[in-house]
């Protein structure tokens, strides 16, 4: 059984007198441990689909079942609880809280879960180790580079061990080299830690790191077939499934994070 089942999902927007339908009866399944990328032109609805799956927007019709829970039926508060426990969200613009340190930013999602301070400390340490930022624990976002900020954002997304991670253009604001490092990190989290991911991107090279690539056009998922062997991305060997990492810090990822 798929981890994510999206069934006949439809979303309309009203723009003046015009009604736009970025998602029109969309069906999609994502298996546990799968890494799916979603491409499409601007306004094609890829971010809308991502936000609906993340439970931060509401569909007009259809169902989204994640790990057996139909999140379209959840009330706002319950949906927030569900996000805290089951979802990791990686933003394009990092969206770190500027007044909090790296440690505190990563710890934020855990503050919403019934968890002891010791357990939180352990999990934050593991997440920061996974993204190679153990030496930036006390730094504030303004003291970090763009790539480091994004890695903090990724650590925040994975720290609660969510069922699924969604990433909205995670490399969109980064230079080519940093983008490559982040792509490798995402690949590694999927390949080594088995994290299920849905990533939205408009960059074909970035999309290629996913095991399956989809396209959204005119409200429909046009391609659902498994991708061909991923092209080489930022130094990673194509389609190896267990990529090499250019970033030596990233190689310190502990086994069995989950």
């Amino acid at each position, binding site marked *: 059984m798929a981890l994510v089942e999206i069934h006949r999902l439809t979303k309309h927007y009203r723009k003046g007198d015009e009604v736009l339908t970025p998602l029109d009866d969309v069906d999609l399944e994502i298996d546990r441990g799968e890494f799916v990328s979603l491409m499409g032109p601007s306004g094609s609805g890829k971010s809308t689909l991502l936000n609906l799956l993340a439970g931060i927007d509401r569909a007009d019709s259809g169902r989204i079942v994640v790990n057996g829970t139909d999140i379209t039926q959840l009330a706002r508060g319950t949906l927030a609880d569900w996000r*805290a426990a089951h979802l990791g969200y990686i933003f394009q613009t990092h969206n770190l809280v500027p007044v909090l340190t790296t440690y*505190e930013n990563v710890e934020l999602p855990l503050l919403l879960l019934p968890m002891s301070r010791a357990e939180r400390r352990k999990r934050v340490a593991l997440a920061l180790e996974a993204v190679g930022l153990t030496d930036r624990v006390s730094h504030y976002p303004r003291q970090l580079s763009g790539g480091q900020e994004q890695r903090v954002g990724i650590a925040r997304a994975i720290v609660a061990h969510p069922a699924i991670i969604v990433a909205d253009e995670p490399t969109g604001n980064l230079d080519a080299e940093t983008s490559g490092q982040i792509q490798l990190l995402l690949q590694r989290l999927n390949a080594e830690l088995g994290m299920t991911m849905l990533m939205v991107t408009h960059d074909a090279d970035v999309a290629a790191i996913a095991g399956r690539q989809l396209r959204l056009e005119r409200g429909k998922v046009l391609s659902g077939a498994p991708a061909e062997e991923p092209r080489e991305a930022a130094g990673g060997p194509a389609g190896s499934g267990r990529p090499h990492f250019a970033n030596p810090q990233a190689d310190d990822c502990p086994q069995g994070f989950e």
Partner: protein
Amino acid sequence: MFRFTPYLLKNLWRHRTRSLLTVSGAAVALFVFCFVGAVQEGLDQLTGDRQAERTLVVFQENRFCPTTSRLPQDYARRIAALDGVAGVVPIQAYTNNCRASLDVVVFHGMPADKLRSARRLEVAAGGWAAFEGRRDAALVGANVARRRGLQPGAQFTIGEVSVYVAGVFRSAVAAEDSLIYTHLDFLQRTQGVEATGQVTQLEVQLAEGAEPESVAAAIDETFHAGPVATTTRGKGVFQTSTLADLVDLVGFARLLGYGCLGLVLALVATTTVMAVQDRVRQHAVLETIGLRPGRLFRLIVAESVLVCLLGGVVGTLLALAALEWGGLSVGVEGITVAFRPSLHLSALGLLISLLVGILAGVIPAWQTARTRIVDALRQG
């Protein structure tokens, strides 16, 4: 909720100038509110005192200032013989200022034995023996002593009255802390030879079950055809009518106090709105990672309450300190209203800070909690 305390404090610290200004504004407003509240409390205590209900004040008819009321002292003996009268205390009053003033000094000359029995004084420094042992001795109220820097053993002169400070007292009736008690005959003599045998007023203690109105009428009837006609009223009524102008002023000042609270409300609400507008996206991120809208609401209200409460605590403490150490009082025509700090006032100050903080935070918090996450994420 407390897990987010560091987040809350750090956000306030990040905009520390803004936070500090808001806290200062709240502090000033609560200072004013508590100060005005203290005056009102002093006035209420003076006019609503239980003992005042069972005490009558006999004054010369159509006279208001203590310097102009002159009653023969032997009226006391004749009043004591009337039905319903338990005791009579002759009082000679002297004040440095009959008009409304913040630094009025009022002397009450009373026979020592009557002073001891009729007033609830706790002599904190010095003693009764020192008072009874000297003709020019005076027991000084704690407020006057503090305001004028008087201590036992000091000599104090104001106008034509010069006294030796035998002791400093505190009274259960706050207004009395602003009085100076002397021996009756001493104060009479300082007013000149013609003042001997004359008093400013007579204080009549009613017997159990006596009707104040009928006793007052009987007293005035007794002296209606005498050399000096009298006006007799309950002590509370007497003080209220004497302080009538002041009551209106205090009432107006109280309105200003409430106005200050309105200003704090606007100030803290503005700060909260600004803080919320600065962090629209941040709040959306918090919701995205799983913060419930209700919890976000409480977080914003908590921030507003914290700022307001901090200002409230500072303002209230400053007001209490000023009231405690300033020894302030306002007097008119020999009646003084003491400003005294009280537990009730502190509790009220803190409660109002809390309520204003909640009120100021509710609307911005409600708007934030209702904003759609995807819309908020697009902002900023």
